[in-house]
């Protein structure tokens, strides 16, 4: 897979990733479907369109970096990496099993293509700031992407990182907030209201782009907009649907951290089948 997929191809890629996410979680009988499915289209755009990476050379010094700060969306990241050619797709089914490289949350020492171990919420933006600082210090042109959850940004450390990124004028850094509106205990608006989100990031000195996190044109537009950005970091607030693509999971906080049984998985897979039976990205 070349990595410069057309927007139409990205739909097939994302559907394929979603099917794998369902299969992985069902095999593991644990994990986080809601936030994996809300982030899938964002990961598809990053790994199959936006980022300068080489799956055959995962440690390439000039590669773009990605930090999955919302580490519980690991299944979506693993699916993207496997489909992009970092490791064999058949390994996906080992998710969360004893001895597997595919730990419940990403482990950079075990998985080629994982640029940072994550899982504890709030860490990833600061790490991405460090990576972007290293790039600036060395005069490198790589970009750093961090995917945050909209519940995750309750963490104070996120705002420490946000402050530092603007202070150091890191225009090589892009944060994306997977804004699905739900966290474990319920709607973000009732658990811990972070509105007005755009104003917060603006006030911290970031360029803010709004996007539909399931619309590839909207996402690429936002990413392109931030490429023109000079002297400050950029954030995309991507409006998403938790559990996107599986009707009975959509917008349901209870699907944050439970895996479907086989019967429900089959229903989900039927909904995610390619309408034309095209399995070219499977």
């Amino acid at each position, binding site marked *: 897979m070349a990595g410069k997929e057309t927007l139409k191809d990205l739909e097939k890629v994302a559907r394929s990733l979603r099917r794998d996410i369902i299969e992985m979680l069902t095999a593991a009988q644990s994990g986080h479907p809601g936030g994996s499915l809300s982030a899938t289209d964002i990961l598809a755009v990053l790994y199959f369109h936006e980022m300068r990476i080489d799956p055959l050379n995962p440690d390439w010094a000039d590669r773009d970096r990605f930090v999955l700060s919302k580490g519980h969306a690991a299944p979506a990241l693993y699916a993207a990496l496997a489909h992009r050619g970092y490791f064999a797709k058949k390994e996906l089914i080992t998710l969360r099993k004893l001895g597997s490289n595919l730990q419940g949350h990403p482990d950079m020492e075990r998985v080629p293509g994982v640029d940072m171990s994550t899982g504890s919420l709030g860490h990833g933006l600061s790490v991405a700031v460090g990576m972007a600082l290293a790039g600036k210090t060395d005069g490198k042109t790589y970009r750093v992407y961090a995917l945050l959850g909209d519940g995750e940004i309750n963490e104070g*450390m996120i705002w420490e990182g946000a402050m530092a990124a603007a202070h150091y004028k890191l225009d090589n850094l892009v944060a994306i907030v997977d804004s699905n509106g739900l966290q474990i205990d319920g709607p973000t608006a009732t658990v811990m209201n972070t509105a007005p989100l755009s104003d917060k990031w603006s006030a911290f000195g970031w360029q803010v782009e709004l996007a539909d996190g399931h619309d590839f044109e909207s996402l690429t537009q936002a990413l392109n907009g931030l490429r023109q950005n000079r002297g400050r970091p950029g954030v995309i607030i991507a409006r998403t649907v938790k559990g996107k693509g599986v009707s009975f999971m959509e917008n349901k906080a209870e699907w944050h951290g439970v895996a479907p049984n086989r019967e429900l998985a089959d229903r989900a897979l039927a909904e995610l089948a390619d309408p034309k039976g095209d399995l070219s990205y499977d």
Partner: protein
Amino acid sequence: MTNLADRIPPKGKKVALREIYGLTLVELGKDNGDVVALDADLSGSTKSSKFARAFPDRFYNAGVAEQNMIGMAAGLAACGKIPFASTFAVFATGRAFEQIRNSVACPRLNVKIVASHAGVDVGEDGASHQAIEDVALMRVLPNMCVLVPADAIEIGQMVYAAAAWDGPVYIRMGRSPVPTIFDDGYTFVIGRAKIVRRPQEGLADVTLIAAGSMVVHCLEAAKRLREEGLEAMVINCSSVKPLDKETIIMAARESGAVVTAEEHSVIGGLGSAVAEVLSESYPVPMAFIGVKDRFGQSGKPAELMEHYALSAEEIVRAAVQVAAVRRTS
């Protein structure tokens, strides 16, 4: 390192270890372009400010945000840098503990955390600023190397050793000036304890195992013990982790009794580490000199050391007690 020689005071004269840390970091920065430094608004106190002045493009102030500092250090390390992150020991290991655990130790990132103002020697600032649990917090983390320098010679070598070590390192320093103990010939090696006073073979009645500011007190205690007819072996155990088990077991065999001494809680630090080794391999009567499960308070550093029984006198008292019941077979 050579440029530093004239900055290290002769034996017996005092200098603050953070001063030598700052100077050494600059020398290291000249030798190795991958070395960068971070601080959390305390660079004037930790002396990372010396590096900041020498290499402004390789120094990153995180502001009063220790968690972010450790996260940034992890990101820098993930991109091939060798970050030295400094602040006070309480905030480095306490405030940012979980960042160190999950973003540094677990992925084995090459971050060096060098903290100053450890122990009650912080003085007047009181309990909130006196780290007495930092060694315990860092020692419990897999992949973490924990080092406690005793003097200027040792901190200088330790900074270089930490840079050469592939993985996370924690170094804790005090605030006050401490006397130089070792001479130029001293060599610090990670994972090796140093016998700094060795009675003739077969004559040791007790072993004093110390780190940091307590090494000099153990040497003083050994002199006084001799006056009381007891011969003490003294070990500088600056590498708390990895621990030099062989030397510790050898010393216990030879002397039959052990006193540990550290400017840290008696729970979880050097004393615990030594006890873990000996109770499994060669149990001997032990005594623990350290802060006895309580917080510090304001006072002058010397007064506080006395108040918390961190003195040669207390080491002597403990040594006499364990030597009386020492293991002889």
